[in-house]
């Protein structure tokens, strides 16, 4: 049976290799063999990607009382960013426990571009989460049910040996 007929969308890519340098994960983005590989750093966002592989969703927030927007009580950023764009001070990490959200919008990807690591077709969804100032883009592992804006979703993670070490380690399910 082809995977496309099952309800669960599979990760079909290779595990992304990384090396830890200066506390950051530097991932391999192969182009043409070993000498043609890009070594791309997750930099100060390494805790996010590392967190996914441990089943944790980490976001950042601004706690600077003098920030004109957050006034020290910033909402969470997801994707995270290390520095606040409004006051330029470093933000702090916070784990979102049992992450849930609702579908803000979505599309059904019939076919992706070359090199796609998710088995098409699948729903690409944008998730609205309480207390998060951004809307995070991701993919849904359920493929066979029709979905609509406002549907509730919960986060799932590819962890341990299953981890891809990329943003695809976060997925959503109905």
């Amino acid at each position: 049976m082809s995977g496309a007929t099952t309800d669960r969308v599979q990760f079909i890519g290779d595990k992304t290799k990384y090396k830890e340098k200066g506390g950051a994960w530097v991932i391999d983005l192969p182009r043409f063999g070993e000498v043609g590989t890009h070594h791309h750093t997750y930099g100060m966002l390494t805790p996010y990607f590392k967190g996914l592989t441990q089943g944790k969703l980490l976001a950042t927030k601004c706690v600077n009382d003098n920030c004109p927007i957050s006034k020290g009580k910033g909402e969470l950023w997801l994707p995270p960013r290390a520095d606040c764009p409004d006051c330029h001070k470093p933000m702090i990490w916070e784990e979102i426990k049992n992450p849930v959200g609702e579908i803000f919008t979505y599309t059904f990807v019939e076919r992706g571009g070359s090199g796609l690591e998710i088995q098409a077709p699948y729903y690409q969804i944008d998730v609205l989460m309480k207390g998060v100032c951004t809307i995070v883009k991701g993919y849904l592992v359920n493929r066979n049910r029709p979905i609509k804006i406002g549907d509730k979703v919960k986060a799932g993670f590819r962890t341990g040996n299953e981890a891809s070490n990329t943003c695809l380690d976060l997925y959503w399910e109905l």
Partner: protein
Amino acid sequence: MIKFGKGNLRIPKWSRPVYAVACGMTDFRKSYPEKKLEELTMMAFRMMLEENDLKMDPLEIKNLINFAVYGEFADHFQDQLLCEAKVHDYLGLDLLYNMGVKTGGATGGTALLAGATTIASGLSDCTLVLGWERMDEVVTWTGNYYIATAACKDFETRLARIYASYYASMARRFQEMYGVDEKVRAEIAVKNRGYAYHSPFSQQPGKHTVAEVLAGDIVCDPLRFLECCAMSVGSASMLLCTEELAYKLTDKPVLLYTAGGSHTLRTGDRRPMEIPLLPHEKSSDYEKLYKDMEKQKGRWPGFESFGATRFAAYLCYRMAGINNPIEDLDLIETHDAFTISDLQTYGDVGLTLYGEEQEYVRSGDCYLKNPKTGRQGKCPANLSGGLLGTMHAVGATGIFSASEVMWQLQGKYDKFHGDPKMWERFGKKKPKDWESLQIQGKPKKGCYISHAGVGSHVTVGVLEKAW
């Protein structure tokens, strides 16, 4: 909530006026093995110098050029860094300085913006602006991946590797927020591809029907095949100059005003803000919209609108003296890479209020011949055939859009689109049922939009008849 400081909203002002006097282009094709890239740019350059009724010998005009600005979207596609140097040398412009600009789909518009600043500032009296893209060296699915590298590589590119998916989620949201009938999107595809039928430059002309569009394969739900532009090859150019030179070179010079706006690469990172109002709008116009958005947990610009387009229009309209676009503009070229982006743009540029974009298309005012009234629409859109019908050789696109507006203002639609020899030049035969899409009633001002990504960079330009 994002708030602007007063200084952020300064209205741009050229230190001296900027004029456009001539433009040229290739035809546009999915694949163009007959010509190398430099040879294509020469076609556009030659047409610009030789076929715009300029009052000097083409080589004399070339002797006036001080500076060149080049637009190319992606080194990936050309597989050649510093293409600008190859093109510049090929056009015989060494040792003049040139610079390349890259702002995604808005590259052509940004090249015009950068070129205009060289005239306005006094750096140059005569500037060549020329753009290109060659997207036929790789298969479409790899081309899609290349384009998708213009999404965030850490958090979004891996999620689809096809740009239509990032647009489709906006289409879905816009559709549900405003109750858009998919037939309205299909109507846009039919209109723009239909206009392309009359252009010898067009890549995807077609006399389609709404039913045909809706029966097409889905690319990314809800966008269907005929609602998306295609990979494209070609070049376009425009010559900018000072007021003094403009009147020496042509009897039909055109003033150029342009400004830009930018917004985050990741649509979901757009934080809510108040709508920057255009000169004809009042905050009370949007009281209901804000409430409706709140009910649907929406926000402005959210996924529904393009903050960068609105910001660019906010600046450019005031710069160009556009007080009410539907009254002051005689035509527009939108960046219709997808039907949905055409629809979304009508609110952003104030041809209608936000939330009423669908009604605007239904009103027929975006047609040359309003299907409702049988008369000319108030602001016909994409008479060139747009990106859906004619081209999206990305680095050339904004320049192509501006050129088509300029030719319309000059009353030269028929000259460039109706001459059988122009069709023959590109190996085509002028259709027997060809129709002139020249705007009637002496158009004075036209607008073009040049747009990148999911709205990351947008320039709005206004061209004004100056004779």
